[in-house]
């Protein structure tokens, strides 16, 4: 943290400075930022080697024009040692990485969206010759900057500050060629009470040659098999994940419970054409909720 300075006493300022500061008190204003991101749909684009084409739609819901640029960046979700998921990205991916970032292009790559305007951006792939069958990935980075910074003007005796906002929305693009399949292996499921939650960890390893876009369903069952808590969360396994989920235990009676976990490819947020069906996997583990202290 930056140490705070003690404000100077007004008596320490010479008279001209006082006059200037008085003026600043009257007219000096910080300026709010005025910008909005653009709405991007869909959240994931699926392209295939047959058409080599795709599209996204942009919409400016704001009241100011927005300048938009579209770029590509190789990346996919990973987890760290504590189970937190982050987005790994690389501007220079390994040559062996299944990156489509270098050969997917947007048309146009730069545009200006008026308030309320919609525009379709076409995507086209120019993959290298002899591209092996499989799935190739990139992220589309849609950057929107808009609005204006109201600073300056006629007054030159005060300090005026303004902040401009840029909003980057990152979506997934998956390019499929030839036979692609996916699956997931579930292992090392464990659950234990940490504080006021049941912490659920597992290892998910992708099978096949395409990302596993699915959902984790978990239910905490009491001794009679009744569902006491549950959650469902979408997730994507590109290589392997060891995510961490939490279920609140507040209000649960102490005792032994069973955590039942299922991972499947049910997704209602992506098109059926984008979903690669894979077999569901299940596992259970016991967890004891201790008496409250």
């Amino acid at each position, binding site marked *: 943290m930056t140490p705070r300075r003690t404000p100077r006493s007004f008596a320490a300022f010479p008279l001209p400075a006082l006059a200037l500061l008085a003026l600043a008190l009257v007219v000096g204003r*910080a300026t709010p930022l005025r910008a909005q991101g653009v709405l991007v749909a869909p*959240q*994931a684009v699926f392209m295939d080697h047959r058409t080599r084409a795709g599209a996204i739609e942009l919409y400016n819901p704001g009241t100011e024009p927005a300048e938009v640029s579209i770029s590509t960046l190789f990346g996919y979700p990973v987890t760290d040692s504590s189970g937190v998921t982050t*987005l790994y990205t690389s501007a220079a991916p390994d040559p062996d990485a299944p990156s489509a970032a270098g050969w997917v292009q947007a048309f146009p790559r730069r545009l200006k969206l008026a308030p309320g305007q919609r525009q379709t951006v076409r*995507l086209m792939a120019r993959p290298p010759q002899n591209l092996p069958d499989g799935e190739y990935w990139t992220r589309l980075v849609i950057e929107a900057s808009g609005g204006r910074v109201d600073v300056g003007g006629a007054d030159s005796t005060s300090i005026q500050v303004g902040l401009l*906002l840029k909003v980057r929305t*990152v979506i997934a693009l998956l390019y499929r060629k030839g036979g692609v399949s996916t699956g997931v292996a579930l292992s090392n499921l464990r659950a234990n009470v940490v504080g006021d939650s049941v912490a659920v960890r597992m290892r998910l390893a992708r099978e096949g040659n395409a990302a596993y876009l699915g959902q984790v369903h978990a239910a905490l069952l009491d001794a009679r098999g009744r569902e006491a808590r549950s959650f469902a969360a*979408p997730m994507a396994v590109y290589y392997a994940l060891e995510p961490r989920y939490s279920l609140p235990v507040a209000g649960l009676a102490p005792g032994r419970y069973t955590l039942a976990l299922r991972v499947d490819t049910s997704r209602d*947020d992506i098109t059926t054409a984008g979903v690669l069906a894979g077999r569901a996997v299940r596992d259970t583990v016991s967890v004891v909720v201790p008496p409250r202290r």
Partner: protein
Amino acid sequence: MPPTLRSLLVAALLAAAPALHAQGRPLRADGVRGLTFGTVFPGIQVPVPASDAARSAQFDISGVKNSSIQITLLLPSQLTGAGTTIPLTFGAADGGYSLTGSTAGLMPFDPRVPLTTVLSNSGRGTVFLGGTLVPPNSQRAGSYVGTITITVAPLSL
């Protein structure tokens, strides 16, 4: 391939692009309110906490319910203008995340590092951002600007 033929091929491929269908809820991030420092005096720091509902910056995010997202803020270390700069600092507790859109009960986070979080069961989340403007005693009058960049990436795709 001749340029004309290539252009025709590109046009044909673009025309063959699949129709855009609605897929779940689109991801959206909006800047609702800027970071407001009020009147600025030379030599007087202006701290704005994330929990300040009137002066902290606010960004609303919407997307798929209960989905995991990563939020990254690119923050300026100074504002520039008038041939000079004003330092702007961000501390470990200058970020706040809310599932309700309120500054009450904010989950604090360090805005200088990426945040992994989830959207609410209605697909919403709100980021509040504070910071401290540090004008030196010699700060010249004038207009100063900076840019805050917020990056929102879904982690379930």
